[in-house]
């Protein structure tokens, strides 16, 4: 039991933190370069071999580790030193509840590919996300610098506002799937639904047979398209990346809350932002894109097709590989979408950020909850 949890946690740490996050820094550089008609990072080399600039993350880490770690005069030393750790820890541990594979049965042994699967998984993510504010606020306050203080102030107001709307915007999703457990949400999305089935519930007439063949994967995206857009917006604002990077705001605040940071402590802020990009991609994949499930090919279909030919173990093993690759593909697509938005949209003004949160997304998300409730009542006939 303990061994299983440790192996799963190590897998997440090795794949997500140690492997994917540095690659993202490279993706971001290369993608922005392509979008801006540049070549991008390509100079770091070992004996003339550059591997498309993939050595840059390594060079960055060596540079950051060998730099002087400056604590500014008059700063609160303890808080200045621990703030980057407080910022990076929630980003890493949030990943614990995101499933990267389904539930498989090997004889009487059941394997569920998620490190921790508490009943209240989504609430865990929100709780961890609300703690993430402190790293930023501590860094802003402890640096004894007016720009970083302003950055910390902006960060605390922005993150606390968007936490509220982030929570409300996904209520519709867990109303549809009737669970907060992320693995159960993935299992519920591992199927399809009839696109025109709602006509039957709305008008009480049976739908023609051929219309039943038009089906979509039972993903949160198709049940809750509005929630998808709102959740993507709010969670990107939570991560403080452009167009919501007001706490950093180079043109006004130099670099905002981490102006006074150097070396690997700056690197930790930088890395925690990229780890959060992966967490966000994983979370959106889980909530809206069916998690590890292959569209139109449910686990039963795959296992049922292969089991008679080979055996159950082989079928499940194949499923694990297929599901993990599907999950990673979806995660990479969501990372790409986030980068695309980051390099496309200009930064908002601060009042626009607040208006978007309180005057647009909040009423829309509450309306979404009501509409979803009515739809569920209509389809299921009971709450």
């Amino acid at each position, binding site marked *: 039991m303990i061994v299983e949890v440790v192996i799963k946690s190590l897998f997440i740490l090795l794949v997500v933190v140690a492997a994917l996050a540095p690659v993202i820094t490279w993706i971001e550089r290369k993608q922005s370069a392509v979008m801006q008609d540049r070549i991008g990072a390509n100079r770091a080399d070992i004996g003339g071999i550059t591997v498309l600039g993939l050595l840059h993350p390594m060079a960055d880490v060596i540079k950051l580790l060998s730099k002087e770690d400056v604590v500014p005069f008059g700063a*609160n030393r303890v*808080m200045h030193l621990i703030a980057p750790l407080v910022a990076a820890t929630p980003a890493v541990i949030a990943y614990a509840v995101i499933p990267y594979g389904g539930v498989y049965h090997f004889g009487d042994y059941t394997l569920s590919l998620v490190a921790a699967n*508490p*009943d*209240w998984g989504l*609430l*865990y993510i*929100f*709780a*961890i*996300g*609300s*703690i993430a*504010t*402190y790293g930023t*606020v*501590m860094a*802003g*306050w*402890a640096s004894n610098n007016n720009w970083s*203080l302003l950055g*910390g*102030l902006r960060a*605390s*107001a922005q*993150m*606390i506002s968007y*936490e509220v709307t982030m*929570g409300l915007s996904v209520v519709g999703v867990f109303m549809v799937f009737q669970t*907060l457990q992320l693995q159960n949400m993935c299992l519920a999305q591992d199927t399809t639904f009839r696109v025109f089935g709602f006509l039957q519930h709305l008008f009480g007439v049976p739908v023609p047979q051929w219309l039943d063949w038009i089906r979509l994967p039972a993903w949160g995206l198709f049940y809750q398209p509005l929630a998808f857009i709102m959740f993507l917006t709010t969670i990107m604002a939570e991560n403080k990346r452009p167009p919501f990077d007001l706490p950093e705001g180079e043109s006004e605040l130099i670099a905002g809350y981490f102006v006074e940071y150097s070396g690997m402590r700056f690197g930790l802020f930088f890395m925690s932002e990229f780890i959060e990009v992966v967490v966000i991609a994983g979370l959106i994949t889980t909530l809206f894109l069916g998690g590890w499930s292959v569209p139109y090919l449910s686990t039963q279909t795959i296992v049922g097709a292969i089991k008679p030919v080979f055996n159950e173990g082989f079928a499940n093993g194949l499923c694990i590989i297929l599901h993990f690759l599907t999950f990673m593909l979806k995660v990479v697509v969501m990372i790409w979408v986030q980068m695309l938005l980051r390099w496309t949209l200009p930064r908002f003004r601060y009042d626009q950020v607040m208006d978007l949160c309180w005057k647009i997304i909040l009423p829309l998300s509450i309306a979404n909850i009501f509409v979803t409730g009515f739809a569920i009542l209509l389809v299921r006939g009971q709450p």
Partner: protein
Amino acid sequence: MTVPVFLFDLFAALAVASALAMVLNVRNTVAAAMSLVVTMVALAVIYLLLEAHLVAAIQIMVYAGAIVVLFLFVVMLLNLRSDDFAPGRARLARLAGALLGVFTVGEVVRRSGALPAPPALPPGFGGYRAVGIALYTDYVLLVEMASLLLTAAIVGALILAKRKID
């Protein structure tokens, strides 16, 4: 000593220590607020050990994640310094606090020997389903009263904050 008991002792000690750190750090408001966050998180872990999962999550989301952030926001906005707090003003409050503390510790020590065994928990106890059903059936009147109170508070805050009401 079992693992839950060990965790309980650990986080109870952490909660008390960080609460003391908050009180003793009263000159440095930000440090006091950060100690309060540690107290809140330690309490959330204790709720988890007591099977109250929803309360634990809400403890972190609301108290640690929202209320203390608002405290910090105000502290940083006003940029309070240590000399803004004149010492020796609250002698009576300190005396009352000390008496209450001594009484609490004495009572805990007196009663800790004869605690009843915990009752068996119904399935799903403390989860969001059980709490939600309880809140919206047995306690729905209280929930509605609380929401009315909060609405009144929001309206009041808006009236105070707005210069001109049109």
